[in-house]
Every structure is written in structure tokens, then in C-alpha cells.
């Protein structure tokens, strides 16, 4: 195709060149015609001939005049001067005519010629009459001169002619050469075109031959394909080709089929949808379909028909391939039937499975435990009501439930750990106890079955947990009691031993010295014994108080009282007991009415005040402050004594506990514990701030008692 396009282009160029050359040729021909006209009209030979004739006539005239002058009588009038003059004048006339005059004018002799002509014309009447001999001789001389002039003119014209003809020849030669060149070009182009044409014809014949061979091949193929029918048709659905394959399929011979309407050939082609497909193939759309012919078992047939558009010799045609696919079709139908049976079976099995599943689900639903199943990606498969109802799930995870989300719900519960937060496939098995809501403990277990399904089980273990907690607290109390007793024994061994030792040593000294004892010495010994006795009594009292409190034997009898006067009384009494100590008061002037058990609060204040004095060294200074804040009254006791080490601060309210800094100072470790427990009974608390070696600040608070409360209490 490309080559033929190139051929076309070359041919076109050649044609164009030929047109141009033809134009040039016609131009050359026009020029040749011009030359022809030139040669015809501008005949310089005529010119010369005219001049020579005139010259000859002038010579004859001169001769005639000479004879006349000689007195000769002319027998022939044609030899007489009159006749000869007429002839000469006519010759001169011709020379002075347009074309001849132009040539003579070019050599610049026209003036001479005209002068001579005028002379001759003037001489005419003279010659007609009898002229004298002199006149004749004079005229003869003039005519003779004319002949010379004419000869000169002839010479010049010849020279001019030669010059002009040389240039003309050159010009003619050029034109001829140009024409020749153009002609050669034309001949070459024509030859080129002819060669092209020849080659084109050759190629065309080759192509035709190839086409014929292909045609023969395709005919051979079409006619020998016996298992496939091939039919071609035109836009009127007229059959153009019908191969033996079609014959064996539809029992119509090719010679019966070709040239007839497709619809007539077989009922197959008269079906509307098949006619549609054939027409679509003509319009350029392929189609494939199957045609089933019902019949007795073993007689049914299925044909596969492929329609394609074909373009042949600029005509839009259609081709259809028809194939017998009965076997495949039957096999497919068999397979479909088996498939159907299989589907029925699958449906039955599925129904059975569904039923089993429903039973299982019902069982799971009715179980007391929460149960959920997830697939290996963490997607929820199933969860029973107990799972949905469990507190964290119900609160947080109603939507978009999957395993990580589900476990994250539980991660907020007490007992959960980070394992619940970092879940992601593949999931690990987890066992954890968590508090899912107040007083409800659950055991959450995540287990994997077959490595794919993940089961989550949520078991309520509150009862177990409660029992465990009770056991734990009993154990704690037991341990505490044991600890208290150990502390108590230790305290007693220290605190009781010292006064007992004082008692024993005093008694020994009195026994040993006997009567040698002075009055003062005896007095001091007895005083020591008494002090030790009272100390022992205090110890016993405080132990008893603590025991009472433990057993819950101390009852709270609250009544309104003035905290200021209560504290002031205790302070004054303390000052009397410890005269070396200074107690400062910062108290409101008005009474501060509080609601409390005066006896017990007195114990608290005494304990705090005696502690302050006891742990403040030689010159104790104690400051007591009372103020109100909101509905509560506050009382603080400050000292600048030994203070409490920071690490021991949390323990100072433990029973029998004594700070490191307190060693060497008598005490049971019961006082503060007792005071704190009294304050707890009142709904208040003792708070402590202390720095070691800088002193301590103990503050307790009590509810204010207004008139209404007083009345209510009453």
C-alpha cells in the first residue's frame, strides 16, 4: 500500500513535470510560429531584388536617354525614355513603399532616394514632350547617379542583412535547441511514465495472480471444511456462498442455495432473532448464539452460529459459521441437571446444619455465662445476650464490635492489664479476672479453637471473689492482731520494765540500808516508787482504753459544747502539771459551739498537748489555735520539738508504733492511735504536718453545732 502510494506520488510528479514541459513546448511552438511569420514577411531577399531591379531600370533609363540624345529613333516604344521612365518611377515607388522604405530608412538612404524620386517626377512632363539633347544628357547623368546610389544602398542592405540574419540565426538556433531540450524532457517523462505504467500493470497482474491463488486456497478451505458450515450473504440476505459443510448440516446443496434468499433455504434462517443477527453482521456487528432444535431424545440438535461482518470489493457482506455442537450441549445439559441435584442436596444439608446451629445458639443463649465467637481476623461471629448485657460492652461497644474493640471495653475495668489493649491478629490466649461493675467480678477468657475461631467466655465470679475478699480481710485482721500483740509485748517489755525496775531498785535500797536511811532519802525513794506506780497505772489505763475501743465498748455520747473553754481548761490544767512549759492560746473571743463527746475530745486534746510537751525537750513551747471554716471548727496544736521523720509520717497513727525520734521518751504508741480513732468516730480526722527537728503541727476538726442542730440533738 505504501509502495503504491509512493508510485502514485512519483507518477504525479512526473505528470506535473510533463504538464510544465508541455507548456514550455507550446511556448516554443509559438516562438517557432513567430519565426515562421518572420521568415515569411521579412524577406530581405525581396528587398535586395527590388533594389537591383530599380538599379537595372535606372541603367536602362540612362541608356535610353543616351540613345535619345544621340538622335536615335526608337522603333519599339518600350525602349523609349518615356516608357523607361514610367517603369523606373514604378520601381522607385515600390522602394518607397512601407516595408522597403523601412529597410532603406534603417541604413539612412531614404532621403537620397526620395530626392531622386522627386527629380524623376519633375522630369516626367519633360520626357513626355520633345526634350533637348542637353536636357536628355543632364537627366541621363542624374539617372546614372541614381543607379550608383541604388548600388550603394544594395551593398549596405546586404551588410545589414548579414548582421541581422546572424543574430536571427542565433535566436532561431536557441529556440530550436530549447524546443529540443523540452522535447527530450517530455520524451523522458513519458518514458518514465510508461515504465511506471508497465511496472504497475506487471504488479497488478502479479497481485491478481496472488489474489486468484488466495481465492483458490480459500475456496479449497471453504469447500473442504466439512465439520463446519460456512455461508456468505449480502445485504438483501441473498446467499453468495454455501459450502459442503452447510450441505451436510442442513441438506441443501450449494447450487440450490446460491442466489436464493436465506430465509427460504432453511427454517433456521427464518427465525426473527437470527435474521436480526444476520442484518447486524452486514452492519458491522459480530454475534454468536446457539440454536436448539427440540426433538425426541437422541434427535435433538444444537447449532452454534457465528456471524461476522465481511468487506469484499467495497461491498459490506456477512459471513456465518455454523457448527454442530449437539454433543457439547447435551453434556452441558447433563452437567446442569447434576448441578441442580447437588444444589438440592446442599440445601438440605444446609437446613440441617442451620437447625443444629440454632439449637447450639439457643443453648449458648440460655447459658449463664457470656459467650462470644470471633473469626481469625477478629470479626464478631456470634455473641449471646449475656455478653451484650455485660456492663462495659453495654456502655461502650454496641456498634462495630470486633475482638480488639471488645477487649478494649474491658481494659477500663479494674484487674485488666495491657494485654487487652494490644490485641491484634494473630490473637493470643488471655485469662484475666476483672471487676466489670461495682461488686461484680468476672473471669474473661480468650481461647482459640483450631487456630481459627476465637472464643471469649465471661464468667461471673463475684461470689468467689467475695469469699476470697472476706478471707483476705480475715487474714489481714488476724495478721494485724498478731502484729499488735507482738508490738504490745515489745512495748510492755520496754515500758513496763522501766517502772518495775525503779520499784525493785528502790525497794532493794530501802531493804539494804534499813535504819541508816535518812528521812529525806526515804521520802525521795518512796516518791520514786509512787511515780513508778502511777506510771504503770497510766499504762494499764491506756491499754484498757485501747482494748475497749477495739471491742467497740466505747460509746459516743455527743452533745453541744464550747470548744474554746474545753481546750482552755485542759491547757491550764496541763500548765499546772508541767510548770516549766509555756502554752500559748490563739482562740476566738466568742465561744465556738461544736457537737461532740466532751469526755473523748478531752482525751484527744490531752494526748496532743502532752505529746507536744513530751517531745519538746527542756523548755517546751506549745501553741494552740482554734478557728472555724465553713461548717467546721478546727483546733491545732503546734510545738517546736523533735518532729517526725518524713518516712515515718504515715505510720504514726498505727497502734503501738513509735517514731525513731521518740526513743528514750516514755510512751506506749497507743495515744495517737486512740485519738485518731476517736476523731474518726466524730467524723473528723487528725492531720499532721511535721519536719524532723523543727516541730510538728497536729490539727483536728469537728462539726460546728448551731442552734438548729442543738435542737435536733435535743
Amino acid at each position, binding site marked *: 500500500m505504501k509502495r503504491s502510494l509512493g508510485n502514485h506520488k512519483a507518477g504525479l510528479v512526473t505528470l506535473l513535470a510533463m504538464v510544465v514541459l508541455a507548456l514550455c513546448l507550446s511556448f516554443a511552438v509559438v516562438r517557432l510560429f513567430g519565426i515562421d511569420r518572420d521568415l515569411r514577411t521579412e*524577406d530581405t531577399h525581396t528587398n535586395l531584388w527590388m533594389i537591383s531591379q530599380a538599379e537595372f531600370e535606372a541603367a536602362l533609363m540612362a541608356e535610353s536617354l543616351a540613345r535619345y540624345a544621340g538622335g536615335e529613333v526608337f522603333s519599339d516604344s518600350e525602349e523609349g525614355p518615356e516608357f523607361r521612365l514610367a517603369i523606373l518611377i*514604378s520601381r522607385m*515607388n515600390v522602394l518607397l513603399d512601407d516595408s522597403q522604405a523601412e529597410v532603406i530608412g534603417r541604413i539612412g538612404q531614404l532621403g537620397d532616394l526620395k530626392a531622386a524620386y522627386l527629380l524623376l517626377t519633375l522630369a516626367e512632363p519633360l520626357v513626355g514632350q520633345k526634350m533637348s539633347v542637353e536636357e536628355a544628357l543632364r537627366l541621363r547623368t542624374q539617372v546614372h547617379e541614381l543607379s550608383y546610389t541604388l548600388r550603394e544602398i544594395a551593398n549596405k542592405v546586404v551588410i545589414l542583412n548579414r548582421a541581422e540574419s546572424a543574430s536571427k540565426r542565433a535566436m532561431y538556433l536557441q529556440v530550436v535547441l530549447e524546443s529540443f531540450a523540452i522535447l527530450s524532457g517530455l520524451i523522458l517523462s513519458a518514458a518514465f511514465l510508461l515504465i511506471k505504467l508497465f511496472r504497475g500493470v506487471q504488479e497488478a497482474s502479479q497481485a491478481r495472480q496472488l489474489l486468484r491463488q488466495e481465492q483458490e486456497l480459500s475456496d479449497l478451505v471453504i469447500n473442504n471444511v466439512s465439520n463446519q458450515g460456512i455461508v456468505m450473504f449480502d445485504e438483501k440476505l441473498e446467499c453468495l456462498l454455501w459450502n459442503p459443510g452447510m450441505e451436510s448440516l442442513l441438506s441443501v446443496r450449494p447450487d440450490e442455495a446460491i442466489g436464493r434468499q436465506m430465509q427460504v433455504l432453511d427454517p433456521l434462517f427464518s427465525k426473527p432473532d437470527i435474521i436480526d443477527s444476520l442484518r447486524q453482521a452486514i452492519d458491522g456487528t459480530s454475534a454468536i448464539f446457539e440454536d436448539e432444535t427440540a426433538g425426541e431424545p437422541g434427535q435433538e440438535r444444537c447449532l452454534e452460529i457465528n456471524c461476522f461482518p465481511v468487506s469484499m470489493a467495497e461491498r459490506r457482506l456477512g459471513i456465518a459459521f455454523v457448527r454442530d455442537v449437539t454433543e457439547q450441549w447435551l453434556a452441558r445439559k447433563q452437567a446442569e441437571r447434576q448441578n441442580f441435584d447437588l444444589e438440592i442436596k446442599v440445601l438440605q444439608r444446609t437446613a440441617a446444619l442451620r437447625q443444629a446451629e440454632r439449637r447450639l445458639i439457643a443453648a449458648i443463649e440460655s447459658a449463664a455465662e457470656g459467650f462470644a465467637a470471633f473469626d481469625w481476623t477478629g470479626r464478631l461471629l456470634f455473641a449471646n445476650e449475656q455478653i451484650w448485657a455485660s456492663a462495659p460492652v453495654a456502655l461502650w461497644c454496641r456498634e462495630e464490635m470486633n475482638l480488639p474493640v471488645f477487649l478494649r471495653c474491658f481494659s477500663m475495668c479494674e484487674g485488666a492489664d495491657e494485654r487487652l489493649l494490644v490485641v491484634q491478629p494473630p490473637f493470643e490466649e488471655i485469662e484475666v479476672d476483672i471487676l466489670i461493675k461495682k461488686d461484680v467480678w468476672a473471669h474473661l477468657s480468650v481461647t482459640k479453637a483450631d487456630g481459627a475461631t476465637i472464643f471469649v467466655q465471661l464468667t461471673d465470679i463475684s461470689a468467689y471473689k467475695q469469699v476470697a475478699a472476706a478471707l483476705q480481710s480475715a487474714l489481714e485482721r488476724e495478721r494485724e492482731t498478731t502484729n499488735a500483740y507482738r508490738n504490745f509485748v515489745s512495748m510492755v517489755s520496754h515500758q513496763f520494765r522501766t517502772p518495775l525496775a525503779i520499784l525493785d531498785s528502790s525497794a532493794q535500797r530501802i531493804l539494804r540500808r534499813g535504819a541508816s536511811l535518812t528521812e529525806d532519802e526515804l521520802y525521795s525513794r518512796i516518791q520514786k516508787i509512787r511515780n513508778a506506780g502511777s506510771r504503770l497505772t497510766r499504762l494499764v489505763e491506756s491499754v484498757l482504753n485501747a482494748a475497749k475501743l477495739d471491742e467497740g465498748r466505747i460509746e459516743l455520747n455527743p452533745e453541744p459544747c464550747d470548744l474554746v473553754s474545753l481546750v482552755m481548761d485542759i491547757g491550764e490544767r496541763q500548765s499546772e502539771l508541767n510548770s516549766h512549759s509555756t502554752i500559748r492560746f490563739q482562740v476566738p473571743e466568742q465561744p465556738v459551739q461544736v457537737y461532740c463527746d466532751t469526755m473523748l475530745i478531752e482525751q484527744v486534746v490531752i494526748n496532743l498537748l502532752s505529746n507536744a510537751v513530751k517531745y519538746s525537750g527542756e523548755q517546751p513551747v506549745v501553741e494552740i489555735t482554734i478557728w472555724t471554716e465553713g461548717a467546721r471548727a478546727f483546733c491545732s496544736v503546734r510545738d517546736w520539738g523533735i518532729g517526725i521523720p518524713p518516712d515515718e509520717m504515715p505510720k504514726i497513727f498505727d497502734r503501738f508504733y513509735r517514731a525513731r525520734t521518740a526513743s528514750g521518751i516514755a510512751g506506749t504508741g497507743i495515744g495517737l492511735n486512740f485519738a485518731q480513732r476517736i476523731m474518726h468516730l466524730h467524723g473528723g480526722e487528725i492531720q499532721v504536718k511535721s519536719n524532723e527537728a523543727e516541730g510538728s503541727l497536729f490539727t483536728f476538726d469537728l462539726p460546728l453545732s448551731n442552734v438548729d442542730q442543738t435542737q435536733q440533738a435535743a
Partner: protein
Amino acid sequence: MHYVMLGMLAMLLGQVCAAQAAEPLPLPKGPILLSVSGKIERTNVGNEAQFDRDMLEALGQASITTASILSKKKQLFEGVFLRAILERVGASGTSMSASALNSYKIDIPLEDLKYDPIVAMRVDGQVLKLRDKGPLWIVYPRDAYGALQTQAYDSRWIWQLNKLRVD
């Protein structure tokens, strides 16, 4: 159109001439303008047929308007058809030799008669005299036929004609 009318007139005159053709030639009365010799049937002086002006005028009238090699502008030539003269003398040849008073000679094939050349006696209404190509001048309708515009034909425009010899 003009030529067609002239042609018709010429044919009419030709028929008149044909009627005259049988008659013997009268003797010339004036100066002889043309003498015809050779293969002719009718003669009046010796074996020649001699014509004076009146005899020629009697052969009818013909005219041609044309340019020539001597004159680029068109001129009106008047005279008689050459054919009329030859028929009058009963000429029966293939060519004729025409000669002039200036001794010019030329052979004219008789097939030239198809162009209807004339023997002119007047140019532009002026009677031709000896001093200007007279008294007789053979004229071809040069402008009417391209074939006539060549030297061969131009050389047959013989002027100062006085003799014709039919061969």
C-alpha cells in the same frame, strides 16, 4: 458578408460571360492592354487574343479589399476576374506564364483560380498607370486566405502585366 455578396455578383457575371464565351473576339479598338497566347480557342489578332481597356471592362467587374506586401493598410482593388479572361479566350491548360512590361515573369498554376484572383485596373478608385504598377495587376484575396500569405503567392502578384501564355 461583403465578400459573400461580391462572390454572388461574380457568379452572376460569370454566367453572363459564359453566354458571351461562344462569341468570337472582336478586334481591339484602343491601345492593347493584354495579349493572351498559348492553348486558347479564340484569338483575334494572329494567334493571340488581344484586349483593350473596353474589352476587359466588358468582362465584368470584380473587386478585392486587402493588404499586400507592399502596403500594410488595406486597399480596394477593382478590375476583372482572371478566370473571366481565360474563359473568354477558351484557355485549356494547367498553368500560365504571366509577363510584365518591366520584364518580370512568373508561372501561375491555373488551380490558383480557386482563390478567384482578379486582374485589377484600379486601386482605391484610381486608374492604374504605367508609372504606378499599371495598367494591369494580378491581385489575390490575400487577407481572406492564410495560405496566400506566403512568398510563393506574393510573387504571383505580377504588376504592369501585359502578356499571358497558357501552357
